[in-house]
């Protein structure tokens, strides 16, 4: 009779449980419990009374299906995959999510794409986006430079969690760009029949064939499977943890809209340029600090110690307790950078309005209108690594990629 600790994942098993004879495929063993997929399709986790029969079968493996390659004819679009929900599939037995990138699965849903585009799939990274590090932004920028030599547009599939950070970082890392760069993700993984990934990707490929010369984000505009927004990377933010329409433009309207196969560019944008050039350095010693009542001086001091620049998310127009003023003065006096943003997310920081703000100005704190915290930290990392320190503050407050809005319309909130 086979012992429980001899049973392996994938074995076909017959066993007794509370007097009943059951059959199935072993999904795993932990402690005394065996996970079994029954013939009915249900998974159970039980302690068998007795194992009658077990045979290694190998029916279960974790599929690692990455199918790079090209598909279709027409204008060339590169699809660079970095990981995330959009390329994940579920193993139907274990429920484990595994990465899969078969572009034909997408184009088979939208056959016109095959006629219009030559889609070139490039596995680049395969990580959850929360594990993305600034060094990888630079690598991605290099990959973009390489792909831009042969492609007319680049789509980057990316986890939604840190998508706006990456989009911002790429915006600043790209000195010039000759192709549209469209980031796309999904809020429901591709294994679900209700996934948003196909429509988001359809939008992304279409946006990637325009003259858009910025880094954009292509995601659902509402919870219906209807339209897809093109959002400016430096002004977009994931504003809901779970909805399809989580990505919203902050303080402005979407740049473009895709529906029923048609792109409509509704906003202003930079046109693509002649060549793609990038910065290749990044300064990691920068970070975001979120102010809250009760924050201690040491909290800020110890954070600052390791940083060449900090982005503070203050309250309201950009305030923090005045007890931090001296500390900040010392920090900026030492040639380092402190940029104030607002935890309200919407609206500008403006240190001229209240006395606390004016004290912060005197302490050398910089602010840049409605620059978002995520865009601020990405910009800071690029600016500090690639410009002399006396230029940092000026670079931070001047608008280079649409990250600071000159005007906010009433509807934008």
């Amino acid at each position, binding site marked *: 009779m086979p012992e429980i600790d001899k049973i392996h994942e994938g074995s076909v098993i017959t066993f007794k*449980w*509370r*007097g*009943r004879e*059951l059959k199935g495929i072993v999904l795993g063993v932990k402690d005394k*419990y065996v*996970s079994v*997929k*029954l*013939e*009915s*399709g*249900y*998974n*159970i*986790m*039980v*302690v068998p009374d007795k194992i009658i029969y077990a045979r290694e079968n190998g029916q279960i493996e974790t599929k690692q299906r990455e199918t790079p390659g090209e598909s279709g004819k027409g204008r060339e679009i590169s699809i660079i995959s970095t990981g995330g929900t959009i390329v994940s*599939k*579920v*193993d*139907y*037995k*274990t*429920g*484990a*999510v595994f990465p899969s990138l078969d572009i034909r*699965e997408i184009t088979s*849903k939208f056959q016109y794409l095959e006629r219009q585009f030559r889609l070139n799939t490039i596995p680049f990274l395969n990580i959850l986006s929360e594990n993305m590090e600034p060094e990888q932004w630079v690598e991605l920028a290099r990959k973009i430079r390489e792909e831009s030599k042969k492609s007319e547009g680049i789509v980057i599939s990316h986890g939604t969690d840190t998508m706006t950070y990456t989009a911002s970082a790429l915006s600043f890392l790209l000195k010039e760009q000759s192709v549209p760069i469209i980031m796309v993700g999904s809020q*429901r993984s*591709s*294994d*679900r*029949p*209700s*996934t948003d990934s*196909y*429509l988001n990707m359809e939008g992304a490929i279409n946006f990637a064939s325009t003259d858009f010369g910025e880094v954009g984000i292509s995601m659902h505009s*509402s*919870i*219906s*499977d*209807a339209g897809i927004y093109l959002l400016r990377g430096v002004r977009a933010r994931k504003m809901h943890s*779970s*909805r*399809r329409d989580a990505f919203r433009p902050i303080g402005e309207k979407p740049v473009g809209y895709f529906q029923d196969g048609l792109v409509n560019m509704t906003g202003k944008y930079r046109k693509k340029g002649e060549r793609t050039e990038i910065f290749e350095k990044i300064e990691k010693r920068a970070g975001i600090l979120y102010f809250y009542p009760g924050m201690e001086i040491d909290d800020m001091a110890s954070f600052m110690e390791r940083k060449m620049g900090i982005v503070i998310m203050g309250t309201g127009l950009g305030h923090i307790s005045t007890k931090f003023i001296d500390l900040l003065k010392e920090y900026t006096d030492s040639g380092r950078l402190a940029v104030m943003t607002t935890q309200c997310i919407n609206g500008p920081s403006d240190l001229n309005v209240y006395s606390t703000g004016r004290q912060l100005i005197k302490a050398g704190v910089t602010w840049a209108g409605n620059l978002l915290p995520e865009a601020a930290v990405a910009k800071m990392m690029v600016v500090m690594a690639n410009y002399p320190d006396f230029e940092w503050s000026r670079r931070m407050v001047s608008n280079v990629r649409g990250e600071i809005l000159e005007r906010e319309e009433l509807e934008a909130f």
Partner: protein
Amino acid sequence: MVKFPENTKIGLEVHLQVNAGKLFCGCEGEGMDRERSFQRTLHSSSGETGSSDISTMYEESRNRTFKYIVSTNSCLVEADEEPPHKINEMALNASLMMARAFNSEILDRVVVMRKVVIDGSNTGGFQRTSLIAMGGEIKGDTYSSKISAICLEEDACRKIEERGNEVVYSLDRLGVPLIEISTEPDIKNPEGAVEIAREIGNRLLSAGLLKKGADSIRQDVNFSMGYGRVEIKGVSKLTTIPDILEREMERQKSLAEAVGIWKERGGTENVIFEANNAILNGTGSRLILKSVENGKDILLSILKNGRGLLKNGNFRIGREIADALKQIGITGILHYDELPAYGITQEEKDRIANYLNLGEGDSFLILLEESAEKERAERVINDRISKIMSLNFSETRAAMDDFSTRYMRPLSGSSRMYPETDISVIEINESRLREIEGRVPLRLEEMVEKISREYSISKQDASTLIWNGMTEIFMRLSEKYDSRAICRELVQKLPDAERKKNVKIPAEYVEDTLNYCIEKNYGRYSMERAIDLLSEGKLPEEIKSEENLKPLDENEIIEALKNIKDTKNISLVAKQITEMKGRPVDTSIIARLVKVEKR
């Protein structure tokens, strides 16, 4: 009573709606549709369906959009916009109580699964279901049946309408907890199935946990008589089971007989259509004319040796073919046996037979469809015929209102199930099992008996209490007050007041106000007054705060009587006084006072 074959096997899947909040979110079980809606498409994933499942592929290729009407009892979870919350405790407990009731073995750990369904009835494209227990037995008065599995599932969306490529669903029912109890196929005849199904429903009813409403019990029936298992979906009324099974039994019998004849004749050959639009030139058939006008072709094929089997006496293979085609959206099929008809004359029928060079026992098929659809249609027809010829009739069928059944889809395989990873495995620990131990539902008769005995009320009343879902309230109030008096209020006064005003008073309002009367020691007349006021739309808070329930004391009644001339009818007098003062009055006091006065 119709005689069923010896090898008849009937199994049941009974679905019971639990009277609790939704299974994986904070919404209530009942709600109303709202103005708002959203719309979706669903995609099948390649990994999940077998290549032979062309009905699923067809489902997706149809490019259907699903419109979901948002209801007051739906939230982001139903919209597939938020991960599911923790499982509803009350529903889980109800399923465990049912398992205990039938001595089914409860699993230590419950794994929630997703069952893929892409007809739009679930916004996520799957139904959440989990196996709770296995084994056990249902014992009715005459019959019994072994249980194979007890599952706890989410109910699906309620379909509102289908128009063109759009199907409209309401979210109100989506996510309501369903207990599914599946029996082994050990029931021998339809009467047994009816009894077992009734027994299952009665247990949840007896526990006060069955949701009210027409939808609350639905059953699927598994039937086999030697030609494979047929699963009949959507039998909503228990009593229709015998009629449905009789029709199904006859269908299979005739089918087998027809196959016998067919094989004797030497079997058949694959159907291959060829277009010949000229063959019916000059026809008077409006069906044909209209079809041609719509751009369809006339596709013809021999059906080798099929004459007299498609529609003749009990033989109905024609319908089998038509039903299968319908699943892929093709409807225009005619065959030899049914002609002349539809305006097609005998001469025209002969012309076709001639053209096809039909042999003695051959039949033919006419398909009115675009030639582009030819291959799809051939594949479906040939698959269907070869399945029938193999005498394996196993499939999923839908129950119709006329007791017949219609082909729906192949039996679904286990590949459609995979784990719901958003919900961690639920441990059914000792403390939970202890918690339900005292609440294992009795059989309905036992419950009636028990309540009647323990609370000294009639069986009739006990039964009414259970059917109205008032058992628990009744038992709680009876702890503080005379149970017969409480029973009278709940079984007589309450339905009476509701009927008069045509309203439904929430049970918690009734409990709240009656409790108040008990605590204040106000007595029977106040309770009745409370129910009257509730039936007029007053809220418990209002009723209680305004001292409306305090009965008039003797002095107040004396005062009131001064304004009443005719004191013959005591209850009329009481009514007048209550109307005058807005407060209840004890008729016995009136009676006494009136007597005193008269003296």
